[in-house]
């Protein structure tokens, strides 16, 4: 048996080996090291398995994503390739690795884009909108806190949050359109300093 043949059957290996595989492992240092490494990783993975076992939904989602990306294909057998009970225990460590790879792949794909690179002006509005949306939810929580503690101050905080958010949006846009502009960076720092101040004042525990 050659190394190539052994690696081909490696994913299907269970807890035991055929005589032919055993003989190859005895004679081939590289393949026996590989099996030893896989066993060690598998043992460590099993220690985590009990408490950190994700739900079947997670496994299915990963499988679906991998298939959609063309990284895996429909198995010849009927069972789900990644579903834990049907997956060889030696290969289960590959799942988080594959998931991590998928995330990295997704991020790279997102960053590179498929079409021509957008201009800075085209890029900045979504970023600003996204940031503004995220902040809006935080801001609402903050206003609710202020409203509960100091009802008379809620309007003042709301007006000032809007002012600061407008500053942040403009500063972000400015910084995106010219990342090397020192002054644009200064605007951005100042805008965020103001936002931090508003939050600090609203949440200051020294005030009753």
């Amino acid at each position, binding site marked *: 048996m050659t190394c190539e043949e052994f690696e081909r059957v490696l994913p299907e290996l269970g807890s035991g080996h055929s005589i032919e595989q055993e003989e190859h492992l005895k004679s081939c240092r590289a393949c026996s090291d590989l099996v030893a490494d896989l066993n060690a990783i598998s043992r460590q993975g099993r220690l985590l398995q009990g408490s950190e076992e994700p739900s079947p939904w997670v496994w299915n989602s990963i499988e679906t994503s991998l298939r959609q990306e063309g990284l895996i294909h429909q198995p010849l057998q009927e069972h789900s390739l990644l579903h834990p009970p049907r997956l060889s225990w030696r290969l289960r460590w590959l799942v988080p690795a594959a998931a991590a790879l998928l995330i990295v792949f997704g991020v790279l794909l997102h960053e590179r884009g498929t079409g021509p690179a957008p201009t800075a002006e085209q890029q900045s509005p979504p970023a600003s909108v996204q940031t503004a949306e995220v902040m809006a939810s935080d801001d609402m929580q903050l206003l609710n806190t202020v409203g509960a503690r100091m009802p008379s101050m809620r309007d003042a905080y709301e007006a000032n949050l809007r*002012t600061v958010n407008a*500053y942040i949006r403009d500063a972000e846009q400015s910084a995106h359109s010219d990342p090397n502009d020192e002054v644009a960076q*200064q*605007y951005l720092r100042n805008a965020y300093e*103001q936002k931090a101040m508003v939050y600090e004042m609203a949440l200051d525990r020294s005030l009753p």
Partner: protein
Amino acid sequence: MQQKQRIATWSVVMILVVAALAAAQTTRKEMHFKVGRRASVSIVNQYGPISVKPGPGKRVAVTAIMYSSKVEIDQTKRGNRVSVLSHLLEGADADSGRVDYEVLVPADASVTLHSTTGPLHVEKLHGDVILEGSTAVVDVRDVNAGHVHIKTLNGPVTLTNVSDGYVEITSVSGDVALNAVNGAQVHVNSSSGKIRYDGDFGQAGQYSLTSHSGDIEAIAPSYASIEVVARSVQGKVENDFPLQPEHTSFVARAGSAFAGTVGQAASSVKLLSFSGKIHLKKREQ
């Protein structure tokens, strides 16, 4: 005639009674603390004014006037540190929770004041001054050789005769006025409030006045010694000084940016606004 006198007498009596009733609803509390050199004094007051002035000797005298029984005064003194806190009770609001503070401290004391509504007033000290008030009007005058840090949401801030200080003001929408203010570091960061500086920018200081949409006006005498950079992304800039050109990291375009030096350029001045107008004015002699 006698009837008129009787009516007048009764009116005076009624006024006195009403005044007495009103006075009866306020409670005056006085606190005295002995402190050493460079004491630290902190007053936290949710609603109402705080005024701090220098007093005689090494002692802190606090006079508090409360307008209802829904607020108490908590006080602590640990070592050289004095803390006074208005403690709001159940159901207190801006009226019933109001406390007026008048505080006398040694002139070298460091003072930290918090009040949501203010106003906050500090004068004639030479320790650090840290003031924070959401809507509070802030007034600081005749302070030197200390850090002056002020934060407000929409409360206007006025500094007068502040020298040799490290000044840092952050206000979202309150106007900021600096009159005869100089120091090693003077920074104002505002969103929509106007910033007005009227002074000579001292010697060897770093000044930065930055706003988002608020206008910035800086007035200096013809003998000012500054290296100035002014830029507004969307607003206009104006300059009354004859500037010696100098290299900058951005293109100085007429109407939206300028940079240069005046005199020996002892102090650095940055005037930056996103959409506000900027005007560097020469003071009329």
